């Protein structure tokens, strides 16, 4: 049981770090730029919100299968299979939690007053400096919320990781799947325990989100 919890935490942590790096440029694009294919990109980012996790999991599985292009190149690079591995689960989790990382950041970036960005450019700040000195501090609440939600949402995955990971004990069997198996095998006390722990983690995570939102770490708006 502890093993599966540890895998869940590890998966959530790695996924969150990767997501923050990927989501920031995406959120920036969606918040400030208009370009061809914008709507398509926005839809792609939001798709995991409505798609059955098993559908997403199935596509990822097909994509990383050992005889696929990605699976073959991964295999020749690392001499291991991407399907039914921790790395494969990370890939699937990143896709699955993408909207939870992109959308809070996108919203936070969009709510930065235009006058601040104009001030940055007339003060001679380039894009990189503006990002570091103005946008990120102004949107740091959104970035924090994105991190917490990505983490919590990854902890709560079931269908996707089952599909892609295959529930290998000690490797890809995460807590939510372990719980399912406890129930199947009628191990009530273990099931109770794990369910309570997962409930607690989610509760703490969401409390964090609401506290951040209330305290207005965004720095934006009339407080």
């Amino acid at each position, binding site marked *: 049981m502890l093993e599966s919890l540890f895998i869940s935490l590890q998966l959530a942590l790695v996924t969150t770090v990767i997501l923050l790096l990927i989501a920031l440029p995406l959120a920036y694009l969606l918040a400030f730029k208009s370009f061809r294919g914008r709507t398509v990109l926005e839809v792609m980012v939001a798709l995991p919100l409505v798609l059955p996790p098993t559908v997403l999991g199935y596509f990822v599985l097909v994509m990383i299968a050992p005889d696929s292009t990605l699976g073959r190149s991964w295999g020749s690079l690392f001499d291991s299979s991407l399907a039914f591995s921790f790395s494969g689960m990370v890939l699937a989790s990143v896709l699955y939690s993408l909207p939870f990382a992109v959308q809070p950041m996108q919203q936070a970036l969009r709510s930065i007053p235009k*006058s*601040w960005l*104009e001030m940055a*450019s*007339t*003060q*001679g*700040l380039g894009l990189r400096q503006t990002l570091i*000195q103005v946008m990120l501090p102004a949107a740091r609440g959104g970035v924090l919320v994105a991190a917490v939600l990505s983490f919590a949402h990854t902890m709560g995955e079931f269908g996707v990781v089952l599909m892609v990971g295959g529930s290998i004990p000690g490797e890809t069997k995460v807590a939510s799947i372990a719980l399912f198996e406890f129930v199947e095998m009628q191990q009530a006390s273990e099931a109770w325990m794990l369910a309570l722990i997962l409930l607690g983690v989610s509760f703490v995570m969401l409390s964090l989100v609401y506290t951040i939102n209330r305290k207005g770490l965004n720095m934006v708006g009339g407080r």
Partner: protein
Amino acid sequence: MKNRIQIIAQIGIMRLQADTEFSDEIIIVSGENGAGKTTLLRCLAGLDDSEGQMLFHGKTWLDSRAGFVLPSQARQIGCVWTDVALLPWLSVAKNILLGAEFEDAAWLLELAGLLEISALLQRRPSMLSTGEAQRVALARALYKKPSVLLLDEPFSAQAPAIRQRLRVVLKSIQGKLNMAVIMVSHDVEDAAKLADQHWRMREGRLLKEIEMTGMNKVKQA
């Protein structure tokens, strides 16, 4: 140094037209609300798009025929807008230093002294009065010693006594830094005490004061 602008811009329903030459002097821009004063400054700052030519300090800012636009970042300008846009998480001193390549403590202190904000340097913007915030924004605009200073009613929140002193300060800094100052103001005192040139704007067109005297003025009346 000769500066030259010849621009046309269409911003919403406003059609802006300006064609003029000036040296590094103080220019007061006045005109009714909606006459295009702020729009003119925004075009000069590169925040709104315009077409034509701009030449400042021997440097081309805009040459539409060649398809060239110098971005705001590279124009070496200092701006004070009616929305002062101080960043709330930075101290006053850090706000003033924003975008500067290095910290020149002596210059920062001198500027703070001149603009009467020395005591405020460690405060957060949320602890400033509107007038103080405006002076901090002016300090931020001046700190980088810009070649052109664009001011949109920079003294609007200042009490009469300090406004008087700020005019003297602005005049002396302008002389020292050799910069062109283009300042929107409704205050006749600003025009009387500061203006080397006085521009009037009407319905988006820039009219020089000189064109408003004599026959034109009679016609207008």
